[in-house]
C-alpha cells in the first residue's frame, strides 16, 4: 500500500515537472517581453541576446511614464465606457429573452451568434463611412461605441444562458409581493446574476482595452490615442527603442495579468460560454 502511494506520488511529480516545462515554453514570449523591456538600449542589438536582464535598466519604463500616461488613460476610459454600455444593453435584453419569454428571442439569439462572426475590418469600414458624416471620427465616444460591438453579442448570450437557470419561484414570489418587472429585474434578477455581470464586464473591458482595428481606423488621428495605437506608432517611428516598446507592452498587459490573478474562474467561464453547450 505504502509502496503504491509512493509510486503514485513519483508519477505525479514527474507530470508536474513536465507541466512546468510546457508552461515555461508557452510563456517564453511573455518572459522575453519583460527581459527586453529591462535591457539597456546599447545591449538591444547584442548578438546573441542576453537571456537574462543581467544589467537591468528602467529607462524603458521611464519612457512609458513620460510618454504613455495619456494613452493609458484613454484606454482606461474606453474600456470602462464599453463595460457600462455592454452591461446596460445586455442585462435587460437577457432578462427579456430568458425570463420574460420575449417573442422572437430565439431568432435574436441566432442573430447575435452570427453578429459575432462578422470581421471587424468590415465593421470598421461601415463605421468609418458613418463617422465621416457625423463627425465622430477621432472621438472618444465614437471609439467606445465601435469597441462595444465586440462584447455586446457575447454579453447578451451569456446573460441569457445564466438567467434561464433562475428558478421561476423567485420571480413569482417577487410578483406576489407586488414588484414590477423593472423592480424584479433590479432587486431580484441582477443580484443573482452578479457573477455573469462580472464575467461580461471583464471581457468587455479586456476586448476594448486590446482593440487595435477600430482604434487604428476610427481614432488614428485623435489628439489622445489608446495605448494599442501608441505602441503601434512606436514600432513605426523608432525601431531602436525596443526596450521602451516592450516596456509599454508590459504595462499594456497589466489588465490581463490582473484578470488572471483575481478573476481566473470568470475567465474560464467566459471562454467556454457559448462555445460548448451540452
Amino acid at each position: 500500500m505504502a509502496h503504491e502511494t509512493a509510486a503514485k506520488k513519483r508519477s505525479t511529480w514527474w507530470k508536474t515537472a513536465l507541466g512546468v516545462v510546457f508552461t515555461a515554453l508557452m510563456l517564453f514570449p511573455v518572459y522575453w517581453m519583460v527581459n527586453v523591456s529591462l535591457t539597456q538600449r546599447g545591449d538591444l542589438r547584442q548578438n546573441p541576446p542576453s537571456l537574462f536582464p543581467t544589467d537591468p535598466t528602467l529607462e524603458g519604463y521611464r519612457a512609458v511614464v513620460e510618454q504613455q500616461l495619456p494613452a493609458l488613460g484613454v484606454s482606461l476610459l474606453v474600456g470602462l465606457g464599453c463595460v457600462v454600455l455592454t452591461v446596460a444593453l445586455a442585462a435587460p435584453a437577457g432578462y427579456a429573452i430568458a425570463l420574460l419569454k420575449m417573442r422572437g428571442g430565439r431568432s435574436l439569439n441566432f442573430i447575435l451568434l452570427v453578429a459575432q462572426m462578422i470581421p471587424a475590418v468590415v465593421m470598421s469600414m461601415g463605421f468609418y463611412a458613418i463617422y465621416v458624416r457625423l463627425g465622430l471620427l477621432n472621438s472618444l465616444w465614437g471609439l467606445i461605441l465601435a469597441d462595444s460591438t465586440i462584447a455586446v453579442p457575447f454579453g447578451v448570450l451569456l446573460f441569457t444562458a445564466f438567467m434561464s437557470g433562475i428558478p421561476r419561484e423567485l420571480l413569482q414570489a417577487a410578483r406576489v409581493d407586488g414588484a414590477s418587472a423593472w423592480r424584479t429585474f433590479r432587486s431580484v434578477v441582477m443580484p443573482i446574476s452578479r457573477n455573469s455581470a462580472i464575467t461580461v464586464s471583464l471581457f468587455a473591458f479586456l476586448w476594448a482595452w486590446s482593440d487595435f482595428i477600430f482604434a487604428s481606423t476610427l481614432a488614428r488621428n485623435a489628439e489622445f490615442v489608446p495605448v494599442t495605437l501608441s505602441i503601434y506608432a512606436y514600432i513605426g517611428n523608432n525601431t531602436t527603442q525596443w526596450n521602451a516598446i516592450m516596456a509599454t507592452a508590459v504595462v499594456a498587459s497589466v489588465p490581463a495579468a490582473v484578470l488572471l490573478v483575481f478573476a481566473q474562474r470568470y475567465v474560464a467561464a467566459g471562454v467556454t460560454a457559448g462555445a460548448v453547450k451540452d
Partner: protein
Amino acid sequence: MTTTELDAVSTTEDQAPTPRTRRSWQRTIHGSPWTAIAFAAPLVIYLVAFYAYPLMRSVDLSVHDYNIRAFVQGDAEFVGLANYVDVITSDLFQPALWNTFLFVGVSILFQYGIGLALAVFFRNNFRLSGVLRALFLVPWLLPLIVSASTWAWMMNSDSGIVNAFLLAVGMDPINWLTSPDWSLTAVIIANIWLGIPFNLVILYSGLQNIPGDVYEAASLDGAGAWKTFWRITFPLLRPVSAITILLGLVYTLKVVDIIWIMTKGGPANSSLILSVWSYREAFGTGQPAFSPASAIGNLLILIALVFGLIYVRLQSREEH
C-alpha cells in the same frame, strides 16, 4: 458553469405547467408582451444602429465607386458588382485566397492538435495542474499588439532570440519577417501560439464531461493510454472538437492585427490574407480605396458565414 445553467434551462422547459396554471403564471410573471419588448428594445435599436447599419454601409461602399471626395459628399457612382469582379480577377486574389487557406488551415491544425494534447495531459490532476492551466491562458488574454510586437522582435533577423537559438543549435538563421519564403510561416507560428489557450480550455471542459466510469471500464479491459485515447477520448470528444474547430475557423478568418503588425502582409504580398488585404486597401495605404476593400470584406463575410451556419446547426443539434 455554463453547463449547469443550460441543464437548468432544459429542465424548466420540460416541466411545463398544466394549461390552467400556465395562463395565470404567464400573467403574473411575464406581464404583458410589451414589458419584454421594452427590456430588449435598447439592444434591438443598438443592433440596428451599430451592426445592421454599418454592414449596410459596407455593402453600399462595395457597389459604388467611392473615392475620398465622393466619400464626404456621398455622390459616388453606382457600379453594381464591378468592384467584386475587379477583386476576383485581380492578380492578388488567388495568392491571397491561397494564403488565407494556408493560414487558417495550418493554424487550426496545430492549435487543435497541441490544444488537445495539452488538454489530455492536464486531465491528470497532478500537483499545480490548476495553476499551470491558468497560466496557459496568458497568450489569449494579452492585447494582440503586445503579442505581435513581441513575436516581431523575437523573429528579428539580426537581434532576434529565435535566430540566436537556431545559430546555437547549428542551423542557419532565417529572415522570418523579411523573406517572402518565410513570412507566412512566421505569422502562422505566432497565430498558433495565440490560439492554443482557447483550444485547451474548450477541449479540457469537453474532457470533463466524459464520465470517469468509461475510462475505468477501459482500464479494466487492459487498454493502454494510446488505445484509450483513440478508442474512447477522441470519439467521445468529437462534437466538442467540431465546435472548437469551426469557431477557430471563423475567428481565424477575421484575423488582421497579428499579420498587419508583424509583416503588413508583405514582403511582396507573401503573407497577405483576405482580411489583411481588405484592411490594407481601406486604411493601410495613403490612398484609401474603400470600394474594393469592402468588396473583399463582404466576400470574407460570405466565407465566414458558411462555417458559422454549420457551427450554429451543430450547436443546436448538440442542445437537443
